């Protein structure tokens, strides 16, 4: 294959899926936008976290590969949500918050003095357990973050709003009521709106904290389908209580138990051939 014969997409698919190509064509390698970036977008390096005297997470080592979906499973109170909320530093303001170890985003510590908290949160988006639209119009909800980060303004905002609402499949349902309140939408539609809002600022990583726990099965399926479409452009980490969802929607799974990372690996492997007895107990429903 020579240059020009078959245009290669500017943004390659998941790094690592075409290892041979990089060796064959150094020019293409040079064009690769991810060339100098680490393959692991987010990397937890021995993270230990406590609130006051209470230790929540102990020595968590885990990398998150670019463009993958990682499911975070474990029984209630195991520290899943706390781990997730560490990555965009939502825990920092909790009284008694202390941490050891490090979490990196693109190789740089998220707590580095040069790391601006607001731009970290632009790069690491979040979707919550329940839809949380702002008290403003549907259109303004989508572009709220865009306005805050001054990414676009004026007429461009309408373009962004339409683009993102189309991306989450909400456009046709709301295009005639963009100026209406979001609180009249169904729960599933509200959650999609929040997804559109999170995507609008162009994050690299999306954290999802049980995003479908308050939704009906049809909306859940819709959201799960959307998540798959977001990769490989985005890296997703999803906390879920729903083992079926973890199995259906993720590439990798990590199992947390009492603040410790018991096991992590490709989802299929972890569910079919767990290495640890505790993992097996949990995924087979004997514990949880």
């Amino acid at each position, binding site marked *: 294959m020579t240059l020009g014969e078959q245009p290669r997409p500017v943004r390659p698919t998941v790094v690592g899926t075409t290892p041979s190509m990089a060796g064959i064509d150094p020019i293409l390698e040079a064009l690769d936008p991810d060339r100098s970036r680490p393959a692991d977008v987010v990397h937890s390096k021995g993270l230990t976290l406590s609130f006051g005297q209470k230790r929540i997470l102990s020595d968590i080592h885990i990398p998150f590969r670019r463009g993958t979906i990682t499911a975070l499973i474990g029984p209630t109170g195991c520290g899943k949500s706390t781990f997730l909320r560490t990555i965009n530093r939502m825990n920092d303001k909790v009284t008694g918050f202390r941490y050891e170890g490090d979490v990196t985003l693109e190789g740089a510590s998220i707590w580095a003095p040069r790391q601006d*908290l607001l*731009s970290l949160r632009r790069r690491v988006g979040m979707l919550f*357990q329940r*839809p949380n639209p*702002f*008290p403003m119009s549907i259109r303004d909800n989508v572009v709220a973050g865009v306005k805050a980060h001054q990414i676009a303004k004026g007429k461009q905002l309408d373009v962004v709003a339409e683009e993102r609402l189309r991306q989450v499949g909400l456009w046709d349902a709301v295009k005639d009521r963009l100026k209406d309140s979001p609180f009249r939408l169904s729960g599933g539609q509200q959650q999609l709106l929040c997804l559109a809002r*999170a995507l609008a600022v162009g994050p690299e990583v999306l954290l999802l904290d049980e995003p479908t726990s308050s939704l009906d099965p049809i909306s859940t399926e819709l959201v799960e389908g959307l998540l798959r479409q977001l990769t490989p452009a985005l890296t997703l980490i999803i906390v879920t209580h729903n083992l079926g969802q973890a199995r259906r929607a993720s590439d990798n799974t990590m199992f947390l138990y009492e603040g410790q990372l018991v096991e992590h690996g490709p989802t299929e492997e972890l569910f079919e051939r767990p290495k640890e007895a505790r993992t097996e107990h949990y995924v087979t429903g004997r514990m949880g």
Partner: protein
Amino acid sequence: MMAQVMRRARSARRITAGFRTVEGALWQGAARVAVLLPLAALLFAVTILAIKARPAIIVNGWGFLTRSKFDLGQSYATTVNHIHGVAVPVGASYGAGALIAGTLESSAIAVIIAVPISIGAAFALTERMPRWVSQPLGFFIELLAGVPSVLFGLWGILTLGPFLATHIYPTIANNMPNVPVLDFFRGAAGHGEGLLTTGLVLALMIVPIITATTRDLFSQVPPLPKEGGEALGMTDWEVARRVTLPWVRSGIIGATVLGLGRAIGETIAVAIVSGSLLASVAPNAYGTFGTLAAAIVTQLDSASTDGTGFAVSTLAELGLILAVISVGVNLAARLVIKRSTRLGAPVGRAT
């Protein structure tokens, strides 16, 4: 409204028909009286006011609302005029224009100053301070709401007014640009009695009630939308402005109206600090003036010397206008709330 209350009372009787004990019957009766008493009192007060004001309304006409005049006429004269069958002292002439304007101006100044301060204080109390600071501070603010208004008036005339007139007003008056609206703050700085001082004292009096109400509203905003804003990379200020405030907008308008109502009706503090003029508006922000409520309390004594009763009747008419303004402000606020809640979520609504 009366019919509605009666209907409710009747349906209540149906539900609880058949008392087992005498106490039950007594309790039922007492509850019914308690429900109707405030309504009856209000209707009674307004009716009496209207009856008393009737002669004044007939004689003074619509011009009363725009004219600025307060002349009791010859109270001790032996002859009286009869206008439309009403006995009126010779030379008596009244107009409430200046008083209506003064009431609206001073209340507007109070609200403009008090609302931002109250919202800021409420926000700091709920979002910025640890509990052990905000709780006693909140209690203190509520305590401030209970200070008798005459003390505010005394403090305004003895301390605040002279201080402002000596140290603050001259600087503002001399440096304010000569453009519309702002030129109202130019000119003679006065002696401390007047419009701006009254506005400030009133603001101080309504800050506690607006702050306490707004604080309760803020603490009811669910955390999830606020976290959503933070997670999106908004600053605390942006979260406050775009999420928290809009969430409780209608409630804040309600709290403002509560404060405005108090400012419009405040009597004794204004009577002390305003200068208690009756027939002229303040030439600038520092000028003396008068309000409807203050005029009633300061003029009641001399009005009772009018043997025809016409002066007292005129004061009743002032009271009636005051009531109409208060109710009008309330209704207008309700309209605003209706409009502004289109996008906001009702307070406490789960998301």
